[in-house]
Structure formats: structure tokens, C-alpha cells
């Protein structure tokens, strides 16, 4: 079958987008990562220099990459990101499962308002919402005030500027990315299959665990990746809500670029992050292909 020219033209669009906004920047990062930092414009050295012999010589170095391996700070940042992103993903999954299920099972007229309630926070700036959490979490903030008023605690909890605050903030920020794909799969479940489960003696709880949840697995996986990937690179939340222990890749990256002005190391770090994130994406694609074979 011949592909119409129009379709081929449209297919070029994402390809063009990818080239300009992904491949090209990656090439630039790679180039910068092989240079050395310097206090000039641009803040990195040239890769090729005209030698005295009159020939172009390669002047690149793996210094920045060696840094990444030798300095434990970066390893800690990577581990910090992995830990926080994993915990955030788990938190989102645990919160989103009952919420998405409840929305999908709600009467038709309720679903749109409920979904809107999930999406609505996006209409405000991300930054402002994270700032709002400072107001909630700080020692004299709303949460502590409420807990102290009820007499549950006598001293304010020091949540702000800790990993707990980062976790709360990131879970809050990424929850909708988990709810939406889960809702989509839950609402597409075959009503007959759920009723058949009940008919065969399954309690609503058993139906959820044995039928709804296994069948919603693609949605859960998509949600996990949609949360995990941006959470890995998260910079704003640990910067605003975190403390000294909240050292993550995003923070490290920002420090290298802007505080240390070490562009080569920052570039190498950015590329490392990209590679780390490619692994779960590849996993997703493989699982999706398997699912297509099944259904």
C-alpha cells in the first residue's frame, strides 16, 4: 500500500520537532561536555585548535565525565533523584488508584466535574502552587497550626526543608499525571467483565484486585512513567521545599550551570540523566508492544 504524500508530510512534523528540540540540543550538550570550562564567552573551550604545525588538532577532554565518576556528589544526586522519584511515583500510585477508580465508577454526570477538580490546579502556575506548600508546611503554617490546635502535637513539626516536604510537594504536583491515564483505563473496562466477576462470587474488593487492577496495568505503567520521568529531573520542588539533604540531579545540574559555571560537567550530567531516563522509556515500549500482541 502506498502512503499518501500528505500522510508522509505529517509524519515529518514530529521528526522535525525531534531533530530541532532533542537531537540538536543533545549534540550541543555532547560537544560542550567534551570541553573544559573557562571564564569567557562562551564559557567552554574549543574542541579543535590550530596547532603550530598548521593542522587542526582535537583538544577535547573527558575531564567532565571523569568528574562525574570520581566526585561522590553526583552519585549522591543520582541516588537522591532515583529515591525521591521512586517514592513520589509510589505515593502517586497509591493515592491515584482509589481516586481514579472512584471517578471512573462515579455516575456519568459526576465524572466531568471530578476530572476538572483533578486538572483545575494546572490553571495556576506550578511555582505558585509549590510556594503555597511553604505556607502550609512551615512551622507556623496551616498544618502545624491545625495539629497544635487539636492538641495532637505540642511542638510544630519541622516538615519544611526536609525530604518529607519534597516528597509531599512532588506527589502533589505529579498526582494528576497518574490519575488521568489510570482513569482512562478504568473507565474503559468492560462492564460485563466486572459484573461477571461479581456473578462468579467475587466481592467488589476481589473484583478490583483480580479484574480491574490487572486490566488497568497499562494505565498504571503509563502513569508511573509520566510521574517518574519528570520527577527524576525535578528542580523547583527540592529547591523550594527541600533542605540540605535534598540533593537531586536537578539541583546538581543547576549548581553546575549557574553556581560553578562549569558547563562541561553540567552537560555531561544532563546527558547522563537523559540516558538514565531512556531505560524506563525503552521498558515501556517493550511492554506496550507485548500488550498489543495480547490484545
Amino acid at each position: 500500500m502506498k502512503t499518501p504524500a500528505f500522510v508522509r508530510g505529517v509524519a515529518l512534523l514530529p521528526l522535525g520537532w525531534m531533530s530541532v528540540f532533542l537531537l540538536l540540543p543533545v549534540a550541543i550538550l555532547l560537544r560542550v561536555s567534551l570541553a573544559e570550562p573557562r571564564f569567557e564567552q562562551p564559557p567552554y573551550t574549543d574542541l579543535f585548535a590550530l596547532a603550530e604545525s598548521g593542522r587542526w588538532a582535537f583538544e577535547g577532554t573527558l575531564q567532565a565525565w571523569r568528574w562525574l565518576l570520581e566526585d561522590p556528589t553526583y552519585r549522591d544526586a543520582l541516588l537522591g533523584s532515583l529515591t525521591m522519584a521512586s517514592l513520589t511515583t509510589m505515593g502517586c500510585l497509591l493515592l491515584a488508584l482509589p481516586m481514579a477508580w472512584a471517578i471512573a465508577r462515579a455516575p456519568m454526570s459526576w465524572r466531568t466535574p471530578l476530572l476538572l477538580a483533578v486538572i483545575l490546579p494546572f490553571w495556576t502556575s506550578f511555582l505558585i502552587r509549590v510556594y503555597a506548600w511553604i505556607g502550609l508546611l512551615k512551622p507556623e503554617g496551616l498544618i502545624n497550626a491545625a495539629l497544635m490546635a487539636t492538641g495532637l502535637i505540642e511542638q510544630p513539626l519541622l516538615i519544611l526543608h526536609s525530604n518529607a516536604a519534597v516528597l509531599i510537594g512532588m506527589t502533589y504536583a505529579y498526582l494528576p499525571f497518574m490519575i488521568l491515564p489510570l482513569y482512562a483505563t478504568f473507565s474503559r473496562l468492560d462492564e460485563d467483565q466486572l459484573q461477571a466477576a461479581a456473578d462468579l462470587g467475587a466481592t467488589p474488593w476481589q473484583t478490583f484486585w483480580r479484574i480491574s487492577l490487572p486490566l488497568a496495568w497499562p494505565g498504571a505503567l503509563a502513569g508511573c512513567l509520566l510521574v517518574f520521568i519528570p520527577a527524576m529531573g525535578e528542580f523547583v520542588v527540592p529547591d523550594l521545599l527541600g533542605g540540605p539533604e535534598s540533593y537531586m540531579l536537578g539541583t546538581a545540574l543547576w549548581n553546575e550551570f549557574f553556581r560553578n559555571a562549569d558547563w562541561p560537567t553540567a552537560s555531561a550530567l544532563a546527558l547522563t540523566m537523559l540516558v538514565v531516563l531512556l531505560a524506563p522509556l525503552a521498558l515501556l515500549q517493550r511492554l506496550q508492544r507485548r500488550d498489543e500482541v495480547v490484545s
Partner: protein
Amino acid sequence: MGADPATFLRIEGITRRFGQVAAVDAVDIDVARGETLCLLGPSGCGKSTLLRTIAGLEAPDSGRILIDGEDVTALPPHRRPVNMMFQSYALFPHMSVRRNIAFGLERQRLARAAIAERVDEMLALASLEALADRRPHQLSGGQRQRVALARALARHPRVLLLDEPLAALDRQLRERTRTELAAILERVGVTCVLVTHDQEEALTLADRIAVMRQGRVAQIGTPSEIYDEPADRAVAELFGTLNLFPATARNGGLHCASLGLSLAAGTDHADAATVAIRPERLRILAGDEHCDHEVQAHVERNEFLGAARLLLLRLPDGATMRLLTDPRTRAEPGNDVRVGFDAHAVRVLTQ
């Protein structure tokens, strides 16, 4: 209604409304132990809603469902001793055939060995042994149908509910599957309520048929009762072709001009009715043969149907009549014949 000791499943005054419309309207049906009852009717007649009410998937607005004397109306579906085979089969796509069949048994907390034994039994019953480890999407329509049936039967349901069990199959497969289904139902001997819109399915599978119309039971009876003694014209027309002739009241009885037939006033119906005769109840009379009733007819067409021959006849008053007969019958178009029928072949229908 007295409590018939043979009654196993009792549907008592069940009404289910959707908004203003009563999908099921005060239906009473008693089903005997081991009997197969068929709910027959067009889509929207309430038959599926009634079936789902028995399963507990619909809550009735009023009425009760009793199984072996026990009121199950308030029980949720997972606690009812009934199992249903869904029209879509509703097989679990992420489970093998074996796991699908075992699902209901696992909910009963049976021992692992007991479950395996029962599943094997069901696989054998439905001739699915070779397919036990396949997933539903790897099966043909007929195979899926058998898995759904085996899954519904696995738990020894006290009442088996079948929602259009053959509707999802193509025509050729349907007839063979129908025979298989009838054989399995007979072997298992389970009390069964079956919903269908296909009258042939109803006639072949049911011990009794309840014809439903607009949420009510229009007639209930054995297949031959429904076929031979339809309560009204609509029920009669459900099952194949019918010769219908107007009749008027005369001298306290009914007179049918087309057939030249006068009937005693066995009925106290209004002054007009319809006389119905099935095409296969009519016979062409040879010279010396005689029948309860006879009428002269002109052969217009003669159609050979293979297993039978259909004659299109014109009666003296211009009405047409169909006659189904032996394929060897000779009755050339253009000839006049004498057609006879027995008194009990004639049905007087209202409406």
C-alpha cells in the same frame, strides 16, 4: 397463586422501572427444578432486565426472587447461588481458559485439588481440554462460547442464566452450537433461564417458553402450546408464517367468509376476530378424501423448498393462503384443488 411444590425458582411480581418506563412490569413466573425456561421477545421487551434481576445485577423496584423457597432479592450478585453466561461472554482477557473457569471456584475457597478437578471436569464437558492454557483472544467465537458456559456451570449454580447464548455466533455455527448446548444442559440437568429473541432457539432449547412483550408475559407454555395455541395474534406471528382470515360475529358464533367456516361461540370476544391456520396444518385432498373442513382453492404458485413444497393458493373470495406440504405433492399452478383441515387446526385470535 398457590405454592406449587415443583417450583424451584419463583419470580414474584417483579417490576423494574427505568425512569417512567417499566422495563419489567409485575412479572410472575414459576420455574420447576431442572426445567429450562426461555424468555422470548424482541429487544426492549424486558427479558434481559428480568434475567439480570435474577442474577442480582439489577435491583427490582418491587417483587421478590425466590430460589428453593429462599428469598434472594436482597442478596448482592456475588452471594447468589446463580451464575450467568453473558451475551458478550465477558471472559477475563488476562486469564487463561483454565483460570477463567477456576475463577468462580477460587472465590468459594475450595481446596486447590478440588478446584483443579472441577475445572478438568468442566473442560471435558465443554470439549476444551486442548485449549485450557489459551487466552480468550486466541479462541474462536464458538470456543469462547463454550468457555463462558463452562465457567458459568463450574460452581454448580442452582439456577443457570443464559443471556442470548448463541447471538454472538454466525449462522452456520449457531445451529451446531445450539445442539451442543441442549445436550450439555440436559446432561447437567440444571434449572435454567434463557433469554433469546430467536424463536427457533426458544423452541429447540426450552421446556417452557414465556413470551414477553413490553415488560409483561404475553403467554407462557410449552413450545408446542405456544406454537399451536398462541394466545393472540402477536404471539402467533412470532413463530413463522400464518394464514390469517378476518371473521365476524354472526348468529352468536363467528363466521369466516374466506374459508366458508362457521364456528360456535366458544369465545365471548367482540364482534370481530381473526382466524389463523398454520400452513403445515392444511392438506390437499385426493378425490375420495374428506376432512373436518374443506375449501376450494386455485393454485397460483408452487415453490419447491427442498424439504417441503409451498403452495400459494387463492380462495374463492380472493384471499390468499399458504400451504406447506410434502415435496412430492403435484399441484400445478392454474389448477383448482380441494384443501382440507382439521377442526383443531383452526385458532381464533383476538387483535
